[in-house]
């Protein structure tokens, strides 16, 4: 368990360091989830990912935790590489702290998480562009309906949402 705590601490430290130093201290320190949505989401999700990595690798839990992280990082000021870097940052920590016989399996699990995260990243980028397109449709919804451009179908029926 000590090893788990040590890994968690080091990993979180590296996650925070992706942000400017003034921000990292706040993200790491403020416990209120409403005052600090990014920090508390990352902290919670990193804990879940680590548990699953070391224990059962429950796909649903891993998916949910990755989802909450990637949803945030897909719209932050990060390149795709920077957005998903946090998973790869785990590898050198594991290499230092995990027992040798486990390392190969852990490595494979990190890779699997990375692939899941890649799917999620693309999903959230797509969702952002869909939401952006739907917003434009909504803006002039009534004008378009008045002039009959959309026929009888509502924008919901036409797949706007």
């Amino acid at each position, binding site marked *: 368990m000590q090893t788990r705590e040590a890994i968690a601490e080091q990993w979180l430290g*590296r996650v925070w*360091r*992706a*942000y*400017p*130093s*003034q*921000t990292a201290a*706040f*993200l790491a320190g*403020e416990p*209120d*989830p*409403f*005052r*600090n*949505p*990014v920090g508390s*989401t990352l902290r919670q999700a990193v804990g879940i990912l680590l548990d699953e990595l070391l224990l059962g690798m429950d796909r649903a839990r891993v998916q949910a935790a990755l989802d909450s992280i990637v*949803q*945030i990082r897909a*719209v*932050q*000021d990060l390149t795709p590489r920077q957005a998903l*870097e946090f998973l*790869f*940052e785990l*590898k*050198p920590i594991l290499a230092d702290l995990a027992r040798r016989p486990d390392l190969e399996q852990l490595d494979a699990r990190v890779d699997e998480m990375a692939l899941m995260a890649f799917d999620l990243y693309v999903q*959230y980028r797509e*969702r*952002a562009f*869909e*939401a*952006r397109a*739907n*917003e*434009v449709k*909504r*803006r*002039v*919804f*009534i*004008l378009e309906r*008045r002039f009959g451009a959309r026929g009888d179908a*509502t*924008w919901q029926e036409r797949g706007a*949402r």
Partner: protein
Amino acid sequence: MSNPNPKPEELVQIGYQPPSKDWMDPSVEFRKGTFCYSALPKNLNYLGLPNAREWQPFDEDWKLPPDWKQIILDGMKERLEKYRSFRLFMDICVRCGACADKCHFYLGSGDPKNMPVLRAELMRSIYRRYFTPAGRLLGPLAATPLAGGRELTEDVVKEWFYYFYQCTECRRCSVFCPYGIDTAEITMIGRELLNLIGCNINWVLEPAANCFRTGNHLGIQPHGFKDSLDFAVDELEELTGIRVDASINRKGAEVLFIVPSADYFGTPHYYTFLGYLALLHEIGLDYTFSAFASEGGNFGLFNSHEMIKRLNAKVYAEARRLGVKWILGGECGHMWRVLHQYMDTMNGPADFLEAPVSPVTGTRFENARSTKMVHICEFTADLIHEGKLRLDPARNNRWTVTFHDSCNPARAMGLLEEPRYILRSVCQRFHEMPENTIREQTFCCGSGSGLGTDENFEMRMRGGLPRANAVRYVKEKYGVNLLACICAIDKATLPPLLEYWVPGVEVAGIHELVGNALVMRGEKPRSTDLRGEPLVELEAAHA
């Protein structure tokens, strides 16, 4: 790439320490999705603003006028003399940090220059260099981190543009400032100064130019306004069986009713508009719209004080021309900041109007005796309080509702209880978001102050995260599926925000829910709500 076939371990060689950049370094990167495009020359020309030209923020050359630096410094000097608040805000900040973690953009983006104290520092550093005795004495020597001053360079202009058109002027930070510094006003001055050299955004100036020409943001002319209204009257008749009379430019009406124009062409705003029409018909209010004051919103607020005044003038002018007694205003955010805090000073006194009295309840709106303009939530809450409306809240049973305090009605006019009182009367399931995300502490939608444009989408998602995060909490805890609000910008920008962060939660105005619940005399049995969606639960209950 020096090595075309790197080994896996080389691929994951990652630098963990981001380059430490001094905050005084003004360089910013204009990455698409995180800023607004420049204003079109035609809009600047229409409004008579300087330096109309083709340019974009990501261009290297912003085509500033040759004497841009002097223009900015002169503009700053003029405003320091004209607005005592501005000088005070430049001088008194002690950098206590109370505001630092209160900005939604800081919380969502992690960019330190979004800490309100640092955003203001972008301007204070110029103030220190050019306007304080020490700065003037030391000259360029004052432009050091130690002295806290900076030289005014083109990079500083670009940095101002990036951050002052990122702040949504929501004023959440000002709630926490022990000195009462209103950082939104610093942003407003920053934008005024940028406007002097033609650095402005189209999403602000196009609505402003349209407003100046036709009275509303989309540039709809009077006949178009009438068409819109007729369309809504027809639809309301289909839904309720009642034909309401919505008159335009009718002289001698008791009340002039002004709404944000999005109410009659955007969705979900439109359903709120139907709600107004139903309500005002039911109580028999003698009111009229104006085809010229066909917009309550005022994008001048995001441009300059002069522009606020120019665009706002139509409100009292139309009230005078039509000979009404007082003015009623619809659900809008920044519109109410202007009406509540600026209109009386800029275009008043409206001594040709009377202090507003509800003809239905006799209530005298003392709070509006000077501006003569009442918020429709105050008006409706009074009607409900006096028992003048027959309401069937079960008609809103498909919704479990929470309320987003729109920044301006909440923080700029203290309208906190009335919307909640109405919501509790017109729907059966209402749950508040956590305390530190509502009322005076409400989190902005992330798209106010003219930044709700789609090219700025990513930045808006960052800024809206704290709000969406609280919505997600009540969705998971109580099954909330509707976010009610009283701002036209919210209604336009919260749907995409929630589509990204909390799918499954929709957005509605308060008066849409009022219109659903309102039992109108002579109405046909309602089978749908104002959106045309079936009243499923009600039917089930009756069966």
